[in-house]
């Protein structure tokens, strides 16, 4: 078991390093020894280059993902405003707020943001339960949830009722 109080950072050398360390020291001065060093340097260079190229590819993928979800923070902030608008629209009907809410909904759709449906079975991949009645199986939406592209950016908050 690892000693809890004192932990060494350097680990047992890997195979490659062990081979290198096992090479007798008198070899190192000779011309023959310089060739393995060149091999090693070339391999390390190739590995470094490969790492860099792979990193570039990975970075390109990360940028693509970043662009896909670049607006996520902004959308999450806007969603909170829409939450309040919906509450007001419900409490004070006939003032036309539902039209404003619809415009937000259309705007979200344009940017790949869809409201999560609250029907059928409770699905924790999409819904978050905040209250439950004993024996309840029907969902009532407490706060809307949204999916952006294919990512659940906010689950729908639901109450499970009878």
């Amino acid at each position, binding site marked *: 078991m690892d000693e*809890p109080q004192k932990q060494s*950072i350097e680990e047992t050398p890997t195979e490659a390093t062990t081979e290198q360390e096992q090479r007798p020291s008198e070899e190192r001065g000779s011309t023959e020894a310089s060739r393995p060093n060149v091999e090693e340097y070339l391999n390390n260079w190739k590995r470094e280059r490969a790492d860099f190229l792979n990193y570039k590819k990975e970075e390109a993928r990360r940028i693509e993902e970043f662009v896909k979800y670049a607006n996520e923070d902004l959308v999450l902030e806007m969603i909170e405003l829409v939450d309040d608008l919906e509450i*007001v629209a419900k409490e004070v009907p006939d003032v036309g707020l539902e039209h404003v809410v619809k415009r937000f909904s259309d705007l979200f759709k344009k940017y790949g943001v869809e409201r999560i449906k609250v029907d059928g079975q409770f699905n*924790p991949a999409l819904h978050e*339960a905040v*209250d*439950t009645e004993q024996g309840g199986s029907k969902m009532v939406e407490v706060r809307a949830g949204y999916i952006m592209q294919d990512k659940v950016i906010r*689950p729908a908050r639901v109450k499970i009722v009878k």
Partner: protein
Amino acid sequence: MSKILGIDLGTTNSAMAIVEVGQPRILENKEGMRTTPSVVAVGKNGERYVGVTAKRQAVTNPANTIYSMKRLIGRRFSDAEVQKDKKMLPYELRAGSHDDIEIKMGDKWLKPAEVSAMVLQKLKADAEDRLGEKITDAIITVPAYFDDSQRKATKDAGEIAGLNVKRVINEPTAAALAYGYGKPRRQGVGGPTEASAKKDEKIVVYDFGGGTFDVSVLEIGDDTIEVRGTGGDTHLGGDDIDQRIIEYFIEEYKKEHGVDISKDQLAVQRLKDAAEKAKHELSSTIQTEVSIPFISADASGAKHFSLVFTRAKLEELVKDLVDKSVQLTKKTLDESGFKIGDINEVIMVGGQTRMPLIVEEVKKLFGKDPHKDINPDEVVALGAAVQGGIMQGEIRDVLLLDVTPLSLGIETLGQVFTKMIDKNTTVPVSKSQIFSTAADNQPSVEIHVLQGERAMAHDNKTLGRFILDGIPPAPRGIPQVEVSFDIDANGILNVKAKDKATGKEQSVKIEGSSGLTEDEKKRMMADAEKHATEDAKKKELIETRNLGEALIYTSEKMVKENDAKIKEEDKKELNEKIEALRNTLKSESGEEIKKVTEELSKVAQRIGGELYKQQPAPSGAEGTPPPQEPKAEEQKTEEPKKNS
């Protein structure tokens, strides 16, 4: 060779990281999140949930939703801590045959290690998905106070999850590794570039998380990090701070509306969201407005919650909790045998350490700024990945690359420092830029090589100078002089200037370009920060003057070359504007210079437009183009050589 996964298996949340191209980075889980709740559940139909899905269904299924396994792993059922925690947990526990703990999940009784393994399994699967390769090895972190039994159980959890646990390391050690302490010393011409601690340095790791507070005192050895003391409170964390805020909101609402909404679960949930959001905002602002419309209703109608919540109020509400953490820190330090003055560095871990009050109190206690640049929610996982990287040789002293500690550049028109290589650029590196002359028929350019972060050349350190002469006569801005900076793997700087027309070049070699002491480097960077605003203003003024001068030049040239074609009254007006600008250039007001430059520009453009109209039908190269606004590259012109 597959990557080693670094895992921070937390009480509330877990995180994972790998090392890529020598740098650790967090891996997102399948849901796209950088942390995964350490929660596992089994549904009515036997379906298993792990992570955020388990958390989301917790309210519907509390008896089968297992969390905080870290409080139970490797412990005995009869432990006082376990008996205390048992009272707060909604799921069932029992003693196994050897007084070990068993947890009821669905219709099965499982060991805490088996439940933790489910979280690790999910992390492993998500990591494999992200990386597109199999993960077999892992480093898992544990609190420094974990005993052998708890460490073994954690390792068992990893193995049950299909991981070969190369090592179980302490969380404060991992945090120290993430900040570069204890790594193999880098050998570069410029000396150590990351925060690799010297031997015998003492580091305090202050970890204020969601549910627990841990403080550790570490001592750095040759290639070891020794834990010299641990302390904390397993039931003190950010959740307690959130609770204080919620209670305050409920109290204020009661005062204003006479209604107690503490029993209204949905209202409390909305208050909880608002409390957490307000707490986060108050880390960067002095006050925030909390507004929750229609939070409740009574006979008189709908009620709203609205409150201006200040940082001062938040600090008042939680001061005792923060003070408690400070007292525990002092106690741990005493018990470790060290004094405050012995501590060289302090590292912050855990999301709650973002709170300004906590940073302030820690700074007050130790008399130094704590390290908090690395995301405190992720630093432990990153450190675990670093340990894995060291073991794999990804982070080692075979191929060492240094960085240039301060920016390098040259002096350009107006005594401005123009950077060629930014600070912290990894070397070897080469950068080139094209410059030009500042005066007509300028025969040479002086390359004044500088190092530093200040905007004005004279505030930086001179590394060398040389002159490139033999530039053929040409109007200012026409010659192309390519200036190249090259730092080789030994840290030697070669600066070359080449006239692209003649091919003539001159160069200087500067050895020990980072031959500054650590103190000098720190002083220069601190100076730059201190003078950043005034330096920026000075630079802007000079650039405004340069633009003005360039416009005077092009306007006068336009008049000289088109004397016969320009009406007398236009010439008079243009010359008046030129003179006005020439006089204004002496002013210290950038706004004034811009205004007069704009006036000259309008007149010059109008006259230039009329000259164009006088041209015959387009034929290519005929006619003088209207004077352009000076291009960006024209700003970067050399000072005229002082001695011909």
